[in-house]
């Protein structure tokens, strides 16, 4: 394993040693185990599709810890299966966003000039609408399906990756390792893939995790609006949508799946931000030299999701 990869892993490990991220990781792993176990077997008679209309809209009980929905289905089972939907859609969306955004950013940053201008304008195009609106517009075109949700959410995430990747390239372009490789006659492709990328992957990974939380949120929001993955696939957003209809009948219907959704979003967010903080040397107690902040300036400029404008002002 190359030195760049190893140092990156060291940072990851340091990020995960704090309590908040560690708890988040534990929670997520628990959730993933539950979700995949649900895939393999139907443990404990937790069937998300089994209807029992005689016992509809009940509150929490021994047989149904989360209660039942309007068709008598067990909400806990549906929540676990919903985890599967959310996690897979989010994973797919983030991978799509990275697959499109990172190459865009790398090319734009490395070559500069016209290619940079064109690619960044494309990114600006994606930023012209607020995320949920862009996703809605795409769904309006693509129709309602898991693939459509994945593409819609994925495209919303492309700008972030493009910017992070571009910032990384810009800061790494002048480093000795890149100059040396170029002096040996390396092609741009080789330089980008074999030299720049191994040094740039940590911020990109951090962004992937942070974006996962956004993707889960966005996917649930689309489902809540009624344009998500079609039924009967259980989905957290869908459960909140129906739960709201029955707010006066069952207090817990909407609340509990929402809680699971929130915890999952927060877990990803916590891990992602802990990773970013470590990468930028922000976790260091006051007084420690910023030597660990290898990528501080560039990544903090690009990673900030609240950067005021797309054309960064120069001070």
């Amino acid at each position, binding site marked *: 394993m190359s030195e760049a990869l190893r140092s990156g892993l060291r940072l990851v490990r340091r990020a995960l040693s704090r309590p908040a991220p560690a708890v988040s990781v534990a929670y997520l792993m628990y959730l993933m185990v539950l979700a995949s176990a649900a895939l393999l077997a139907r443990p404990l008679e937790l069937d998300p599709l089994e209807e029992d209309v005689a016992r509809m809209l009940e509150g929490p009980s021994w047989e149904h810890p989360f209660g039942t929905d309007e068709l008598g289905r067990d909400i806990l089972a549906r929540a676990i299966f919903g985890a599967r939907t959310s996690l897979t859609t989010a994973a797919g969306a983030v991978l799509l966003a990275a697959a499109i955004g990172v190459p865009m950013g790398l090319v734009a940053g490395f070559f500069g000039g016209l290619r940079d201008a064109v690619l960044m304008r494309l990114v600006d195009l994606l930023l*012209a609408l607020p995320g949920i609106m862009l996703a809605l517009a795409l769904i309006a075109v693509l129709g309602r399906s898991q693939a459509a949700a994945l593409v819609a959410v994925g495209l919303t995430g492309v700008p972030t990756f493009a910017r992070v990747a571009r910032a990384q390239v810009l800061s790494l372009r002048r480093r000795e390792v890149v100059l040396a490789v170029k002096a040996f006659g390396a092609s741009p492709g080789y330089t980008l893939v074999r030299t720049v990328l191994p040094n740039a992957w940590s911020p990109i990974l951090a962004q992937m995790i942070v974006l996962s939380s956004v993707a889960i949120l966005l996917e649930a929001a689309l489902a809540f609006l009624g344009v998500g993955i079609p039924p009967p696939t259980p989905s957290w957003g869908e459960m909140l949508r129906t739960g709201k209809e029955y707010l006066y009948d069952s207090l817990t219907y909407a609340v509990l799946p929402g809680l699971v959704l929130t915890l999952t979003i927060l877990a990803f967010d916590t891990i992602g931000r802990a990773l970013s903080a470590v990468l930028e040397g922000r976790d260091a107690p006051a007084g420690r030299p910023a030597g660990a902040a290898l990528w501080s300036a560039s990544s903090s400029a690009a990673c900030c999701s609240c950067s005021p404008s797309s054309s960064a002002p120069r001070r």
Partner: protein
Amino acid sequence: MLVRENATEEQIALVTPKFGLDRPVVVQYRDWLLRALGGDLGQSLHSREPVLKLIAERLPATLQLAVAATAIGIALGIPVAVASALAQGTWLDRLLSGWSALALGVPTFWVGILLILLFAVELGLLPAASAYVPFWEDTWQALRHTILPALTLGLYVSGISARFLRGSLVSELASDYVRTARSKGLTERVIVQRHVLRNAMLPFITVVGIALAGCIGGAVVTESVFTYPGLGRLVVQAIGTRDYPLVQGSILVILIIYVLINLVVDLLYVYIDPRIEYG
């Protein structure tokens, strides 16, 4: 739908050329675009009313909600940011930063549902479905209907404002002039009030603008939770009924507003901080 579900072949054949639906999609889009540039956004397929009129009806509602939410968000975010920045590194800072993370991560529709549960279902104090009541018409009712959606959306805005302002304050507090002021003997309070806050507020103005823009276009979910008659909900309803002229028209309007506000914010930033220039 323009014709009933089980329309005959002949009925469909009649309607199609009337609305130009038999031409290629690209041609239809070009025609729509040309007309839109002239201000004609067409008619809603569903209600036959002009799209522009439908949008204009919903716009004030969205604006009222956006302004209210941004105001609440800033009012909550500023104290959190100041306290957090001044108490950097302590438990208070971590607590408040955690709160910001929570405010940003919690889904707005869940917050909305919880608020409805508490205030409408349990306490019966506020309406579960919010109507648009202009502030100047009936202030008390407007307040009752707008407070819950504004709070829901405002929570998210407070998260963004707090996080941004805290970063801004922290970097200001670390600057040289603050060190000079301290060595001059000024109290921390004076330094913060008279110098740091003012300097940190400059970039914060841009965040306010962005938040406002975001609330206008991104309030879709909140509007849906409270069935508030805003622009966002119009888009969702239009998508549901496949009312493409309405979908295109309203997204176009939202886009224009969003881009315009961002542009104004960018220009404002250059104006108020003479050190900035665009290359």
